[in-house]
Structures are given as C-alpha cells and as structure tokens.
C-alpha cells in the first residue's frame, strides 16, 4: 500500500484532460462470474473484428463440434470464427448484428444440441520450443482479437516487424468506462491464465519487461495480479488513478511511460505493445488448451436487470438470453446498449448476439432514457478543450465539422480524436460533439473511396479512348495500304495495256459505240412518248462529252 503510494507520488506521468463519470461498477461485482447456459441458438456474425469479414467454410445442415473452425480469415487483417458449442448449422444469411448502423450482416446460425462435445484440440505444452512466427500462427488460427473493445486481430499486434525492438509489453486492465467489470473479474478469477498468457506474448514479442496496469478502483484484481506477478521476473503490476479514458491505448502508454505515441502512429514506433488482460487469458487457452476464442466475460448490468453480474458467455448468444439469466425482462426494456455509456451504442433489437468485442451489455428501462434538453448553442466556454485527452480543440473541430469544412477539420487534427466522449460529457450546451466528429470522419473516408473509384473510372475511360483512336488509326493505315496496293496493281495493268495499245483502243471504241447506241435508243423511246423533250438534249451532250473524255 505504502509502496504503491510512493510509486504514485514519484510517477509524474499523466495524460491531459479526462473526466470522472459516476462509476456504477458496484452493481455487477457483488456476485462472482457465472457460466452461461447454452442457448438453443447461436448467431455468429462473420464480421466481429477490425478488418475483412471471415469466410464461411461450413454449409447449411453441417454438424459442427465445439471449437471447430466454421469461418476462415479472409486476408491478413481478419480473424477466424469457431463453433462455441456442438450443434447443426441451420442458416447462413443476414441477421441483426451489434453495430451502430442497425443494419443486418451475414451470420452463421447454429442450432445447439446441448451435448457441448469438443472437436479436435491441439494443445501445445512445450510452446517455448516454438519460434515467434509459429506462436502467432496458433493465435491467428484461434481467432483471437483484442478483447478490450476494438477487436483488432491480436497476432498482428504480436508482430511488430523484424526491425522494431519492443521494450515494454503493457497489459491493459484499466477498464475505465463506467458499468463495465468484466476485466476486473477475469483478473480476479484467472490471474494465473493471464500470467501464462503474458509469458507467451513476451516470448513472441521478445519484450524485455511487462507492466500490468490496473485502475485503483479494482483492489481485488490488483491484489490477485500482484500475487501472481511476484513469481515472474520482469513483470510489474502498476496501479493507475481512476480517470476516464485511462484505458485508451495511447493515453495509457503516455501515463505509464511518459512517451507520447506519434499522431497517426502506432505504439510499436516507440517500442511498446499494448494488449488487454482478457486477450492474454485467451492466448493462454489457445496455446495450452487448444481452445479457440469461443467465449468471453460479459458484464450484464443496468437498471433493467435485477442481479447485475458477469457471465462467461458463448459467442453468438442473443443478448436477450443473458438479460434473462440476470433476472431481467427483455420486453420491458427501452434500450439495450453494448459497451459502456461513454463509447457504447444502442442495439436495434435485444436479439443481437454477443460477439468478440462485447464487453458489457447495459439494459436500460424507460427511466434511464430521459428525453434530453434541447441542444443549446456553443458558448465558447472551453470546457471541452480542458478535458480532451489528446489536447485537441474540440470547439474548433465542432465548428468545422458542423459546417462540413473537412479540410479545416483535418487541419485541427480531426483524425487524432479517439472519440472518447469527454467533450460531449462536459459540454454545458449538450452538444453531441463526438457525433459530429464521427460523421466528419466517415464523410472524409467516403470522399476518399469515391475519389479512388472516380480515378479508376477515369483511367478506364481514357484507356478506352486511346484504344478507339488506335483502332481507328490502324484501320486508316490498312485502308491506305490497300489503296496503295490497288494503285500499284492498276499501274501495272496500265503498263500492260500500253504495250498492247491497239487492241485496247479498239475494245474501248466498240464499247463506246455500244453505249452510244443504247443512249440513242433510249432517246428515241422518250421522244416517242413525247416526254422531257428539252431534258433529253443536255443528257445527250453529257453522254457525248463523256465519250469524248474517255476516248482521249
């Protein structure tokens, strides 16, 4: 305790800004975590992570076993998906998924058989013999993504590149968002697994030291981790002050090491890698037990449930099932939120499944969702700038985002915004600032996509134009050559006729007499009919002229 106090006094590092929203963590820590009941149906979205959606490798009607891979990673930044229990694939089509858009997306649906029968498991006990690349492959095949909320494939974060030396692995057990206690519980209950996971991660990264960070409001978790860390050299447990958003990667790095991550950069650039504590436990299970990522700790809380608690839920479990397991009545809820109140978002239905990034479900009743006072104009109080953990000027960003002046917004470093919501939280005018920034970011990305498409279209159109021109030129060239060839052959023919001039002249003479005869006959006929008397005369002369010219 005293040691901790000294450590805190000595540590001068801190990130700027931050807020202290009401914790609301007490509700869900009164009982220990419970294992979920297996629901009748699991809905597994193909897109549960950052990157490309997974690609199904099972068909409707297939029997699957627990832990069996049912969708493979599609490309480098992607993650595989596994069957959380045994059963039958009943459908592969679009279902509602947890996403702020409320849109449906492709999912694999499994009707569970209740047997929970494991498929083949490949446990590696002597992983120390494996090199970093082989370890990363195990972690990739297990479909492990960052369990803190963003869901970035973990094996990529364990691959800093050959040229980069990683000094510090930071384990993130901060969990700064209100209501959420799932990381608290995994640290209390699985500290041993986390520690072994850390050893594997350090081996893969070749990291010298490891710092486990726990916020001050989790003394039990801090205790448990300290007990475990005692036996391992190079691992330090650090208690960090309770302030939101301490759990955000870049802010945590700044607070722990005093180093700032460069704008648009990654923590690896300054020799640091950050992983969530739950990810470490998942890595342990994947390597030691051959268990892919098929379940996770989920905090189910809010006024809509009678007993808030942490559930070790299977991926794909509909949220309504978990709310029922906490004595909540899904039908009476006015809103279900995934994630914390600061960065979470509302679900369009309580039927959406738990996915790899679901850390918390907040069941809200009508009294929670009070209608908001109207948004008032910005009074330039500057409260938002004081709390911004990235030292941005939220007010300026707001003006530019509101007037859709994207260039100006980018000048004010829009893309350094971590969307933590501190500015919206303190705004006395209740302006939904973060929503403006999110919208502006989306618009800029959409513009970039459209620009790329337009460039492709321009390229294709220009290529087509040049092709058409080339074809026309080639055609003209062919024509010219043909003409030349024709002229040459005519010349040849003329030369032949010149040698045999007499016959040619006779022939043409005969021909001309024949034509004259025909014309005369026609003239006579017309005269007989008494038509076009005057017209016939010039025709006659014309005919004569023609004959003359051809004669000459």
């Amino acid at each position, binding site marked *: 305790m005293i040691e901790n106090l000294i450590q805190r006094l000595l540590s001068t590092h801190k990130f700027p800004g931050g807020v202290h*929203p*009401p914790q*609301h963590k*007490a*509700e869900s820590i*009164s009982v220990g975590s419970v294992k979920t009941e297996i629901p009748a149906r699991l809905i597994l979205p193909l*897109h549960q992570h950052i990157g490309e959606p997974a690609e199904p490798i099972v068909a409707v009607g297939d029997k699957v076993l627990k832990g069996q891979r049912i969708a493979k990673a599609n490309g480098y930044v992607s993650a595989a998906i596994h069957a959380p229990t045994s059963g039958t694939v009943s459908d592969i089509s679009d279902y509602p*998924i947890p*996403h*702020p*858009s409320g*849109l449906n*997306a492709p999912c694999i649906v499994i009707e569970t058989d209740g047997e929970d029968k494991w498929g083949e498991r490949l446990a590696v006990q002597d992983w120390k013999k494996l090199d970093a690349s082989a370890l990363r492959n195990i972690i990739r095949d297990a479909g492990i993504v960052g369990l803190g909320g963003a869901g970035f494939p973990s094996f990529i974060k364990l691959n800093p590149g050959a040229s980069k030396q990683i000094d510090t692995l930071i384990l993130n057990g901060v969990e700064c968002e*209100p209501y959420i206690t799932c990381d608290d519980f995994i640290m209390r209950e699985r500290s041993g697994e986390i520690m072994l996971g850390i050893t594997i991660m350090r081996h893969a990264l070749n990291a010298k030291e490891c710092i486990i960070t726990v916020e001050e409001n989790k003394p039990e978790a801090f205790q448990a981790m300290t007990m475990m860390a005692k036996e391992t050299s190079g691992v330090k447990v650090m208690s960090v002050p309770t302030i939101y958003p301490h759990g955000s990667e870049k802010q945590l790095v700044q607070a722990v090491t005093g180093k700032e991550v460069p704008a648009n950069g990654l923590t690896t650039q300054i020799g640091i890698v950050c992983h969530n504590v739950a990810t470490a436990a998942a890595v342990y299970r994947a390597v030691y037990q051959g268990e892919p990522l098929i379940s996770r700790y989920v905090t189910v*809380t*809010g*006024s809509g449930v009678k007993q*808030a608690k942490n559930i070790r839920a299977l991926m794909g479990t509909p949220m309504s099932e978990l709310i029922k397991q906490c004595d909540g009545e899904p039908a009476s809820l006015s*809103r279900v*939120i995934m994630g*914390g*109140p*600061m960065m*979470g*978002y*509302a679900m369009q239905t309580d039927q959406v499944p738990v996915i790899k990034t679901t850390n918390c479900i*907040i069941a*809200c009743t009508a009294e*929670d*969702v*009070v209608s*908001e006072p*109207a*948004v008032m104009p910005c009074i330039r109080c500057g409260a938002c700038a004081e709390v911004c953990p990235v030292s941005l000027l939220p007010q300026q960003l707001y003006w530019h985002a509101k007037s859709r002046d994207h260039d100006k917004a980018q000048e004010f470093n829009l893309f350094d915004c971590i969307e933590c*919501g501190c500015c*919206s*939280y303190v705004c006395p005018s*209740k302006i*939904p600032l973060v*929503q*403006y920034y*999110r*919208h502006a970011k*989306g*618009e800029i*990305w*959409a513009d970039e*996509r*459209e620009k790329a*498409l*337009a*460039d*492709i*279209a*321009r390229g*294709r*159109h*220009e*290529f*087509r134009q040049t092709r058409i021109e080339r074809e026309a030129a080639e055609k003209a060239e062919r024509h010219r050559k043909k003409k030349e060839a024709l002229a040459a052959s005519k010349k040849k023919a003329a030369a032949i006729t010149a040698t045999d001039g007499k016959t040619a002249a006779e022939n043409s003479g005969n021909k001309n007499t024949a034509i004259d005869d025909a014309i005369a006959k026609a003239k006579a006929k017309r005269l007989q009919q008494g038509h076009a008397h005057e017209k016939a005369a010039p025709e006659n002369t014309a005919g004569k002229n023609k004959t003359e010219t051809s004669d000459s």
Partner: protein
Amino acid sequence: MLSAILALSALALAFGLILGFAAVYFKVEGDPLVEQIDSLLPQTQCGQCTFPGCKPYATAIAAGEADINQCPPGGEATIQALADLLGVEPKELNPENGEESVKAVAIINEETCIGCTRCIQACPVDAILGAAKQMHTVIGPECTGCKLCIEPCPVVDCITMVPIEADISEWNWPFPTGDVALAKLAQNSEPVTEPAKQSA
C-alpha cells in the same frame, strides 16, 4: 543619359532572355485548370451534361462555354466544389440535364441477353464483358451507373439499373440531430440500482 538607356536596355534584354528561356523550359503541357476541374467531376462519363464525357465538360467549363451546374451524378457536392475552385457562386442543378439520383449499377438479365454487343460498345469504361452471340455481364465494381448501355439494348428490360444498397462497411454516423441519450446515461447522477451498493 546614355548610361541610363544602356542600363535599361541591358536589363530589358536580360529579363527578356530569362522570360524566353522560362517560356521554353518551364512550359506547362495542357491546361492545369482543366485537370483540376476534371478531378472534381464524378467520372461517370454519362454525357448528361451534353458533353461526350467528363473531360470535355471540364474543358468547356474552363473555356467558359458551360455552366458548373450541368452534372447530375455529381449533384450539389460537385457544384459546390466547382464553385469553390472557380471562385463563383454555387447554383442549383440545371433540371434540363437531369436530377441527382441514388448511385446504381447496371445489371444485365442473363436469361434475355441475345449477345448483340451493343451495350459493350456503349459502355464508356469497358465495364461490360461478353462477345458476339455470347451472354454479356456487367463488372459491378467498375460500373459508374451512367445508364448509357440501356438505350442501345434491343431487348426490353434486359438491362436494369439497381440502386446500391447500404453496406455496413461503408455506413457512416448520421449528422447529429440532437439525441444525446448516451451522454445522458453517463451523466445520470442517480445510481442505477440501490444507493447502498453504489457507495460500496
């Protein structure tokens, strides 16, 4: 007097030479304004602006022969961007050129396609694949939605324009309308369950 005239003549000659060299060595190929305008146009090559493609329209705008409000696929955003670039007032889209519509791609009904290749010849971006008396198909991602293939098609309802559906990967947060329920929940100073547990 003479020295002044000589000095000025020498200066004139020197600058004349510099300008002459600059004109030859720093010559800009093409009109950069046309390129700039062209880069703002949506490149559908649909011809609704009455010019045969985006580049000719850009050339016409640069020459002052066309107005900036003749591009329906670009719509309001393109008019605004052109107005900003050229320093003129933005105006409403000219209804004579058409209306701004949702983005769509052409789909060929492969059952009814007779393989006449007319749509292939009409497509300005070579996005239709096929050969004479063989079924044709549109390469979806390359289609600009210009509709130029519909008119030459001799079969009724063979080519249709299908609007692009909202995709989850391209979805964007809506422009705020004032709902801040989430911030409200975080700010809610009343504990959600019993106050006794809250203090624990």
